[in-house]
């Protein structure tokens, strides 16, 4: 029952965001400041999700070269800066993580 509410609610907000402008077919324009604020939304939200995941993978802050989540993230960022290709970044990041965690047992 809870899952019905959860999925129904997630559908309602997601579809509304995707549909509202299509429904109005461009009759509404955002003020310029809001347009600029929207440009920040994707990277800022994604970073707010990632940062705790990789710096506190076991619940407590772990800023150390022995933290495989953190080290593999740094490697992934460097890869993304050099290659500019999402798939390469994901693969290199995952391989680094797997190597540190299972290869070296970190």
């Amino acid at each position, binding site marked *: 029952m809870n899952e019905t509410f959860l999925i129904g609610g997630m559908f309602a907000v997601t579809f509304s965001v*995707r549909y509202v402008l299509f*429904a109005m077919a461009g009759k509404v324009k955002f003020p310029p400041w809001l*347009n600029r604020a929207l440009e920040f939304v994707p990277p800022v939200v994604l970073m707010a999700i990632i940062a705790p995941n990789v710096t506190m993978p076991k619940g407590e802050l772990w800023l150390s070269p022995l933290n495989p989540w953190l080290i593999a993230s740094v490697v992934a960022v460097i890869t993304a800066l050099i290659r500019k290709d*999402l798939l390469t970044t994901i693969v290199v990041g995952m391989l680094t993580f797997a190597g540190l965690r299972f290869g070296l047992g970190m």
Partner: protein
Amino acid sequence: MSTQYSCAEQPPSRRASEFFAGASATVPLLVGAAPFGIIFGTLAEPNGLSALGAIAMSLIVFAGASQFIALGLLAAGASIPIIIATTFIVNFRHILYSANLVAKVRHLPHYWRALMAFGLTDETFAAVNNRYQQQGNLQQAHWFYLGSFLAMYTNWVFCTYIGLTLGNIFPQMQNWGLDFAMSVTFLGMVVPYLKTKPMLVAVLVAAVLAIVSHDLPHKLGLLLSAFSGIAVGLSLMMLENRKKKQQVGQ
């Protein structure tokens, strides 16, 4: 030379070729989305979402990043209104995509626009936006969109199912750190945005605040840090613009 068809007179072959072109333009993007879907399916049950719930979420919500975050929030014991509010914030970026496409779809009937809105993902936007940049006959380009959307949709739901199955065969998979796949995918999506100082500062502010506020109840730290990051970035950008204007004025 080019024959003008009205919507109704368009030969079916043209629709079919648009549809398949849309699907095949989306194939490279499927390669990136597939592991994402599999990992979502794998992590669903260990994080407290039933198998049926996971499939239903992929079928009905169809928004990868927010589905992952919902899992994380479920595992952390967040309430349903908080998860829905967070979904709203996370998926708000899609309004940018629709703002970009609205001029291309406004001639279509409402049911087409509703269907296209449902299928508006990061990947389909990328594929379709390319198509709309091309010259030539765009009359039937919504069939291209449909092809891209259905390719993404089938792939996402199917991969969720594969992930659920794999998670049942290898229950220890949840301890392999596969959640890192989500972090690394998002990192790869963030980096291309980091081209200006305000954006870089906004992202760093969000990162630090998200860590500091991690222990707030209901994962409110996520919303707090997102809003703070956006506010700081926007302020910096406006300051820079004002400076530029003054320099031009002098």
